[in-house]
């Protein structure tokens, strides 16, 4: 697929975007809808650990949590995936053997992406060889902001090829892209270059995921689908820490892309503390008391 003319991106109006999002946040999700939504949200989480101080034990604990979110609440779904640095893919793969939970690995000199193509390719190939089901790559923001779109496009294509059977998520790092127009531009670029998912952030800078950037990306996905028939997935990452926020994102997803996208195949939350907040909400719905984090494991 060739690159469309990115200098002619469809304009957007920021205030209009914010007003639409305001409507999403006014939806009141209660009772059965709340329970269903929270279960959905849980099933879409990529449980993440991407710290300089990660160890095998830390990753093992995370994988255990992924498989046993809260055994005291029967009937809740597993998370979608666990997301780690490439050198822990092997550990995670072993711990998650037998479950449906995927192993996602960051790569391409995450989080900055400031390195050569060789390094980025070998980073990716290593993770894939170790068994990663999904690769979360970062785009070269510097090149993007200086207008070298072909460079960014070629890089994504190359990594996509190196992924083989693994799914490619392309992280735009929206917090560095300055404007919603740029977010739209980068989304289109990533999708035409072959992304299976587009992702907002590395989670390493602020701001990470926000509703406005996510909304712009969802609309990009919609227009891309109308033009090509290809369904690309969406992953907002970082900053979504409460069940309430997760539900607002799901409302936005439902009303923009429709029910077809409301599953872990096409939508993920990149989050760590979100899971516990959702579990607290579910527990509250059962017992009708407000909960405390003391009663939920912190891994």
């Amino acid at each position, binding site marked *: 697929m060739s690159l469309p003319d990115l200098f002619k991106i469809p304009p957007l*109006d920021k*205030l209009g975007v914010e007003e639409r999002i305001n409507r999403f946040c006014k939806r009141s*999700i209660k009772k059965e809808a709340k329970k269903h939504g929270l279960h959905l949200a849980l099933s879409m989480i990529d449980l993440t650990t991407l710290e300089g101080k990660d160890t095998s034990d830390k990753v093992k604990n995370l994988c255990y949590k992924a498989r046993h979110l809260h055994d005291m609440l029967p009937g809740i779904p597993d998370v979608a995936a666990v997301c780690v640095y490439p050198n822990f893919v092997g550990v995670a793969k072993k711990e998650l053997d037998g479950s449906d939970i995927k192993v996602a690995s960051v790569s391409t000199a995450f989080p900055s992406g400031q390195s050569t193509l060789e390094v980025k390719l070998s980073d990716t190939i290593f993770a894939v060889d170790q068994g990663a089901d999904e690769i979360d790559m970062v785009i070269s923001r510097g090149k993007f902001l200086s207008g070298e779109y072909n460079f960014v496009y070629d890089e994504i294509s190359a990594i996509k090829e190196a992924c083989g059977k693994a799914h490619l998520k392309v992280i735009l790092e929206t917090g560095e892209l300055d404007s919603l127009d740029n977010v739209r531009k980068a989304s289109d670029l990533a999708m035409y270059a072959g992304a299976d998912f587009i992702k907002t952030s590395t989670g390493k800078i602020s701001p990470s995921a926000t509703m406005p950037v996510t909304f712009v990306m969802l609309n990009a996905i919609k227009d891309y689908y109308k033009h090509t028939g290809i369904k690309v997935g969406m992953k907002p990452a970082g900053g979504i820490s409460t069940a309430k926020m997760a539900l607002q994102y799901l409302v936005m997803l439902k009303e923009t892309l429709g029910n077809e996208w409301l599953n872990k195949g096409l939508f993920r939350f990149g989050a760590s503390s979100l899971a516990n907040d959702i579990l607290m909400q579910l527990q509250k719905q059962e017992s009708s008391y407000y909960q405390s984090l003391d009663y939920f494991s912190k891994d």
Partner: protein
Amino acid sequence: MSRIDLNKNWDYSEALEGTNHIRLKEKYNLFIDGVFVEPASKHYFKTTNPATGEVISKIAEAGKIDVDLAVKSARKAFKSWSKLNPKERGKYIFRIARMIQEKAKEFAVIESMDGGKPIRESRDIDIPLAANHFFYYAGWADKLEYAFSHQTPKPLGVAGQIIPWNFPLLMAAWKIAPALACGNTIVLKPAETTSLTCLKLAEVIEESGLPKGVVNIVTGAGETGSEIVAHPNIDKIAFTGSTAVGKLIQETIAGTDKRSTLELGGKGANIIFEDAALDQAVEGIINAIFFNQGHVCCAGSRLFVQENISEVVIEKLKDRMSSLVLGNPLDKNTDIGAINSREQLKTIKDYIKLGKKEGGKIYQSECEIPAKGNWCPPTLFLNVSQSSRIVQEEIFGPVLSIQTFRTMEEVIEKANNTPFGLSAGVWTEKGSKIFKLTKELNAGVVWANTYNKFDATSPFGGFKESGIGREGGLHGLKAYLKFDS
């Protein structure tokens, strides 16, 4: 906990706003001279919930004698009210603003129950705008000398005010606040299908300590309104409603010294250019015609979309319409509430029939229509022309006519080709286009890259048959003052 089937569609559950905290009487009397009094005829009429058909309360019917009493009381109160230190006048109005804020939820619930609009709108738009309107005009009371250079403005006297059923509390605020700030006293009649929030406002006015007779509320239907308009001892008539009734009023007061301001009907043109932010423009179309079920004088009820993007826009529009929720106005997730009355629903349905007869292609969103109550799903008419009646006449419902255009000159001409001139919308990201269009469109309110935005500081009113005079902002003071020159 039972396992949830994540393959099933995720639907919103009912999220009803609680109603057990509101206080409603079984019967409401007229508010004259600071107290609630029975109508001379002892007649009451029912007010119902248009979503369910249930009777909510009984409202007093004011006749000639009651109107006369109200005007006398207003006239008497005017003597002291107009001489009161203006800053003290302002303080009364500030009190009213604050009390509305305190009782905001109660007002919102009653507004939705009585009128049919979604609670989300009454809670987030109607009631806050109403409170802010009082807040804004309270501040003008002691500053009138600055508003009009080289003038010593004085109040007019007693104002007779008649308001419609589409924004009951907000319209009451638009009328009462500036009139009081300028030192006038008031006799006001709310619409007969939506009197309740006005009567609750009367309770607030009572609580605020406003001197008796300064504001009088007389409830009733068209006949009560005629009594007010014809009353010889009223100095000014302020009316919001249909163009037909507006003309009747002008005829009634012709030859008298009565002043009038009118805010009448409209058939707003909403224009989308190829260089618009399309997704936001589509949202703008939705806000323009489906806000308040299209019961809005300034609704963008004529869509003009540039031909080369019309297919994309219409597809996006239909897509967006599919996520609109029609249902119980008290459900927080409802986007489209009930049509205010059976009469209005019949009017809308007649226009829809007419539209089909005129050759228009109809599209309506698939909504589940509740068994009881007055409902109309969001409706589009494609394939209509400038001469179709549904394109020319005000429908006052969730019905949008869609025409395409090719050039700027063409769309400006078509947009202006109407006896109405209340509002218009322009969607383009090109600045100079915005300025050109806004300059050429003959409408009192022009929205660029937005629609249906209201603010107490922003003057609102129409050209041509959409009315005379402005409400809101500094310009809105003129309606209630007289000047030496």
